[in-house]
């Protein structure tokens, strides 16, 4: 039996690949566009992952896998709980691993150094000698101790210096060796720690990040004034079968021993803890991922166009192939393979670009995430094969999907008909792009979707799925309508009767725009709409923040621990320090801020103890729901009253007048929300209570910060200098400096969005250039005829430039219109539903104008360049 010829291979090598090879510029451009889309997606995913990786449970590096943990219902656990637990669990074989965590920063290099400029380090306090028991889990016929570590270590009986163990990365970076002294600021005090060793990297486990330090637990307790306190106790079961069941039994035992009215601990599984960071930031990361898909979406428009154009160009060849007996199925298969190969090639290029982009994006994404959620230093984004595979799959799948219709177009046309229609223009956009009713339906559907609430996720995160779907509907709907604008433009110019050959030539193609034109404009609408929409959001955010910052930072001097670099660092000011600051003769009034994380229904939020009168007088809160009377500001009447931030109310679906049960040591306390204020400081939300109440409930006098109003005539700078000198571990800022820093940090968080917008615009303009070159190539015989009729090359190039420019105008008109709708959607739905922040609306006219001019100029230039290239094409040249 004769072997069947490998038709698909022949089709690929002799048919598809030949065309790609013969048109390297357009092929390269198409791949690049797709690659940019994939790169945006991949880099954001990698950056997200790197940023969240910082939240991984560091103790996992040490304990391999803990099965569960307990934390205090609020605050810290007393160490006495350890013995109680051991007695409670009796002969149950389980290792209890007490953990205390704190953050620290290197001392500042310059007095004017910005907030967040120094890396935040995490110090993990562990019972070091006991950790060896975790290593001994593999009892029985397991291996022995692998090697003897070298170097000098401090015996636990030696209390001469506090030892710290550092990561190999930090040792390398800062040239630290055993015995080196590491200077840090912990709480409000400078501390010097002796490097006692390097944390090893176990095989198959991630290396300890440079930001991780480990100390013996009692040393860290003493250093942080937390003697007798623990942050959590992890449970590591002995290795063996039925581990999950064994943990379930212990968990049940722990829960049974807990008092329902005054719980001593909260039991959770380690998986839940590990996922806490992921859960907390899931909405934020999804938002970014969706944004990153924008460029890919625009890219897919172009892949669709590119393949559709290729079908048209190769129509005669397809007809011949069909005549030679190649079946329509094989033709379709060949086109799909081609689409997939384009996706693969673009995807691979995108991975490389994306990895580079991730290195740039990771710092920004990390800083944003950590400013909003938790304080962890971000390492470089590592190449992740799973993410790469996902990006590649997305690229191939999307490209194949985009190639589906062109493939059907190629396959379903009979040979005779193809031959008969040879030379006629195709309509790649299909009927749907020509149907205004379809566009209208999309716009209406989008409108309806905006009324739906967000999807609520574990950990309090909210994902505005319906709002995103609405945005997609509006973008597509506007894309469809843009085609109508195009023909309107053509007719308008014709009506104006401007005697310009290039203009008339350009308009002749626009009056009855083909699918190719419509697709190009739709792509541009997508990019312009999203970019301008984001610009409106960012501008509105900026306006709101400026107002909020100006109102909020009205006191004169702010003091925090110098280690306080992000929203969630746990450095505090000890009472002796803040009392001496408050007693300074230059100080008229001091607001001592205490606070900590609490969990309400398992969702993290912040409880802050402060002076409500000071807050009212010096912070001028912007009320979402103002308190009905002054009771909340009166220390004698506000015992059960709180102020809640807008984010808090959004997160917990509460309103003014509602009662919240606040977990405190010994049980819950019901408090009433007296007022709701706008706050853009964090996404988790805050509850403000009278500080006296906070101290009573938690028994802690450690302050997060101290805000000072000075006596008339006192110089804030002079006090700042004085306090810095007296307390070198304090960060002391004047209100002017703090306002600038707050705005800088805020703007920094939007850097990623700017980058994504830029990529979207680049892709859209490149796509336009691609479309123009493709259109002009198809018209090469017309162009030859026009030249033969006496038109000069310059005139033809100008006509192409005008055509490109008019396409851009149509795209801009529809894009800017849809951007207004998207801006509204982003501000009042997506942002509100995700973060719970109400923003003032601001239309960034200048930015939008620059954007429009940029797009117009780029499109005109692209048209002109394509025109110049096309006029040089010989009439019968194949490509």
């Amino acid at each position, binding site marked *: 039996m004769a072997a069947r010829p490998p038709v698909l291979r022949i089709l690929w090598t002799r048919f598809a690949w030949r065309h790609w090879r013969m048109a390297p510029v357009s092929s390269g451009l198409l791949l690049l566009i797709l690659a940019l889309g994939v790169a945006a997606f991949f880099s954001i995913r990698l950056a997200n992952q790197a940023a969240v990786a910082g939240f991984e449970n560091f103790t*996992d590096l040490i304990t391999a896998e803990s099965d569960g943990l307990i934390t205090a219902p609020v605050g810290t656990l007393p160490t006495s709980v350890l013995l109680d637990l051991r007695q409670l669990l009796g002969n149950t*074989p*389980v290792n209890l691993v007490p953990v205390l965590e704190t953050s620290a920063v290197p001392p500042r290099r310059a007095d004017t150094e910005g907030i967040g400029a120094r890396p935040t380090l995490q110090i993990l306090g562990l019972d070091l000698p006991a950790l*060896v028991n975790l290593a001994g889990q*593999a009892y029985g016929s397991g291996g*022995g*101790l692998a090697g003897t570590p070298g170097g000098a270590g401090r015996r636990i009986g030696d209390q001469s210096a506090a030892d710290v163990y550092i990561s190999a990365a930090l040792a390398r970076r800062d040239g630290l060796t055993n015995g080196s002294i590491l200077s840090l600021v912990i709480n409000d005090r400078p501390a010097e720690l002796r490097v006692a060793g390097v944390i090893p990297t*176990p095989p198959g486990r991630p290396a300890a990040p440079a930001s991780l330090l480990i100390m013996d637990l009692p040393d860290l307790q*003493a250093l942080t004034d937390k003697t007798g306190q623990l942050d959590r106790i992890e449970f590591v079961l002995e*290795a063996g079968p039925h581990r999950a069941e064994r943990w379930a039994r212990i968990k049940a035992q722990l829960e049974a021993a807990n008092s329902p009215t005054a719980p001593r601990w909260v039991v959770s599984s380690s998986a839940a803890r590990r996922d806490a960071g992921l859960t907390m930031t899931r909405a934020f990361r999804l938002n970014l991922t969706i944004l990153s898909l924008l460029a890919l979406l625009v890219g897919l428009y172009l892949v669709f166009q590119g393949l559709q154009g290729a079908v048209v160009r190769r129509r005669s060849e397809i007809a011949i192939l069909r005549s030679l007996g190649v079946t329509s199925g094989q033709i379709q298969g060949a086109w799909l393979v081609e689409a997939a190969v384009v996706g693969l090639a673009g995807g691979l290029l995108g991975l490389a670009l994306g990895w580079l982009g991730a290195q740039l994006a990771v710092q920004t994404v990390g800083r944003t995430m950590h400013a909003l959620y938790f304080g962890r230093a971000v390492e470089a984004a590592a190449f992740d094969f799973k993410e790469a595979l996902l990006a590649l799959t997305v690229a191939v799948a999307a490209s194949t999907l985009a190639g589906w219709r062109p493939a059907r177009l190629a396959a379903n046309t009979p040979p005779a008909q193809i031959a008969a229609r040879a030379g006629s223009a195709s309509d790649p956009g299909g009927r749907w792009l020509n149907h205004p009713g379809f566009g209208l339906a999309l716009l209406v559907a989008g409108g309806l979707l905006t009324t739906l609430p967000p999807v609520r996720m574990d950990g309090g995160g909210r994902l505005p799925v319906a709002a995103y779907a609405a945005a997609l509907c509006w973008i597509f709907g506007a894309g469809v309508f843009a085609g109508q604008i195009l023909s309107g433009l053509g007719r308008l110019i014709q009506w104006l009767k401007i005697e310009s050959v290039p203009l008339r030539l350009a308009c002749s193609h626009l009056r009855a725009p083909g699918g190719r034109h419509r697709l190009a404009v739709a792509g541009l609408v997508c990019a312009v709409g999203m970019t301008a929409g984001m610009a409106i959001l960012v501008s509105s955010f900026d306006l709101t923040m400026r107002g909020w910052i100006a109102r909020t930072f009205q006191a004169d001097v702010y003091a925090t621990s110098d280690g306080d670099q992000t929203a969630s660092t746990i450095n505090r000011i000890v009472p002796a320090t803040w009392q001496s600051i408050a007693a300074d003769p230059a100080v008229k009034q001091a607001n001592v801020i205490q606070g900590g994380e609490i969990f309400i229904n398992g969702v993290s939020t912040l409880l802050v103890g402060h002076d409500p009168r000071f807050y009212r007088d010096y912070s001028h809160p912007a009320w979402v729901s103002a308190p009905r009377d002054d009771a909340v500001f009166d220390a004698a009447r506000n015992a059960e009253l709180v102020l809640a931030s807008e984010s808090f109310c959004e997160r917990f679906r509460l309103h003014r007048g509602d009662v919240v049960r606040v977990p405190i040591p010994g049980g819950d306390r019901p408090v009433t929300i007296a007022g709701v204020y706008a706050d853009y400081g964090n996404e988790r939300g805050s509850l403000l209570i009278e500080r006296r109440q906070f101290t009573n409930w938690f028994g802690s006098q450690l302050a997060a910060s101290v805000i000072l109003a000075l006596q008339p005539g006192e110089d804030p700078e002079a006090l700042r200098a004085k306090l810095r000198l007296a307390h070198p571990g304090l960060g002391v800022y004047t209100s002017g400096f703090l306002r600038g820093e707050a705005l800088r940090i805020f703007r920094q968080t939007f850097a990623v969005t700017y980058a994504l917008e830029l990529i979207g615009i680049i892709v859209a303009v490149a796509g336009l250039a691609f479309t123009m070159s493709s259109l002009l190539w198809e018209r090469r015989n017309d162009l030859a005829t026009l030249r033969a009729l006496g038109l000069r090359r310059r005139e033809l190039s100008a006509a192409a430039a005008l055509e490109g420019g008019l396409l851009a105008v149509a795209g801009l008109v529809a894009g800017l219109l849809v951007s207004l709708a998207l801006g509204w959607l982003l501000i009042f739905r997506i942002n509100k539903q995700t973060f719970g922040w109400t923003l003032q609306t601001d239309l960034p006219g200048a930015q939008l104008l620059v954007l429009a001019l940029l797009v117009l100029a780029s499109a005109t230039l692209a048209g002109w360049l394509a025109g110049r290239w096309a006029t040089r094409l010989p009439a019968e040249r194949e490509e």
Partner: protein
Amino acid sequence: MTTAMHHFINYKFWLAARAVLAHLVANETKVADSRGRSSVATRRETSFGRAFRGLKPHGYPQKVAQRLAADGWVTWRVNRDAGGQGNVLRVTDPRAGSAGRRRDAVTKCVGWLVAGWLLGLGGPGPLWAEPAAHTADGYALPQPGRQFVFPRDHGSHPDFAIEWWYVTGHLFATNQGQYGFQATFFRKALLAPGATNRSASADFGNDQIYLAHMALVDKNSGEFRYQERLNRAGWDAAAATNTLDVRNGNWTYRLLPSAPGAPAREVFALQATIGADVALTLNFTPKKPLVVFGTNGVSRKAADPQAASHYLTYSRLAATGTLTLDTTNVTVTGEAWMDHEFSSSQVGNDQVGWDWLSLQLFDGREIMAYRMRRKDGTTDPYSTVAWVDQHSVVRQVGPDGFKWTVREHWHSPKTGADYPAKMQLAALNPQTGQWETFVVEPLVADQELAGKIGGVGYWEGACRLRDATGREIGRAYMELTGYGQSLEGKF
């Protein structure tokens, strides 16, 4: 072992723990050493220090020796180097009650003799050297004549540097299962009693560290399981000072309080696990009185007069309880051996390891045999075989009174060490003057503790005991150290 932990123990701060462990295992040497010699206390160095250099046992007039032996006294003869005349110096009687009072009377008489001798009344000059009360570091040293008070002295003695409680035994289950077990709780002081730099945190102390070993061997399946544990003094490891109440993680070993109104009866309770699938809940009741090894309550270890311990042993206890094995609970009964020893000293470093045996004969006698191995392969003169008769009277012979022969070897696939697998011990029974032969055969070849925490592996396992004819005459536990690597310089 999970990879993360496997590597974490390489972490440099483990040097601290390892340094401690090195000390602890060093004192295992001492444990074994004391097992070999403590009840004799008449080796080349006795508790009276250098003054008694050259003393040799069993050299005093036979009549005196026989009388004292008949009364259950452990006897010695002092051979003065100069004259070679024998003088009875000191006797000790481990038994309580009237025998103890008799011992005091004899001791007084003998004491006068000694005093006269020391003062030069019968010899070439005063040779008395009072044993030091403390080491240079400030740790307490064992003192002769210490009056042990129980239950207090079952508890911890933190003024001493080193202490351990050790229980081994053979268990028989209702389901025909047969098991051997080992439970050892060690304490090592890191700070001398007067030290001022103690941790402010009682929960995370820096003055003591506790190591513990738990092992179980299943004779039928041949499976040997063990676990080691290390904790600093504090919330997860402690030892009471007023009674026996020692714990390390979830492992505990306690003297149970007597029920009010019930006759005083000592019951020791062990609760322990090995990994996830073995749990031991055992109670031990002494079948024979406590034996205090050594001279006048002090057991010498080496040439250094400070190398001595107080060494208390129950050579036979009834064991009852429950054994949980892979979620199956079985009731077990059997017999156990318990040591409690505390000291503050180190042994010499010319030894590479030791072999130790505890034999429980079906006829009601026990034997503790100890051989300290030197670098050149010879047996150290401090080695010994101690016979405990049916009345808990201890009689001991030195290296000239026993012969230790290795009959088979076993190669450890885990550590590569070659251990003696079958031992033959021929020893002179001082009570009868006859030589007896014992053959010790491990129940299971692999009973090696690989030393994952201590870093030094050793073999400690349950054995059966036969006589020269192959008849099974009892049960044994054997400890073999220094075979994987020499212990010289480490301990």
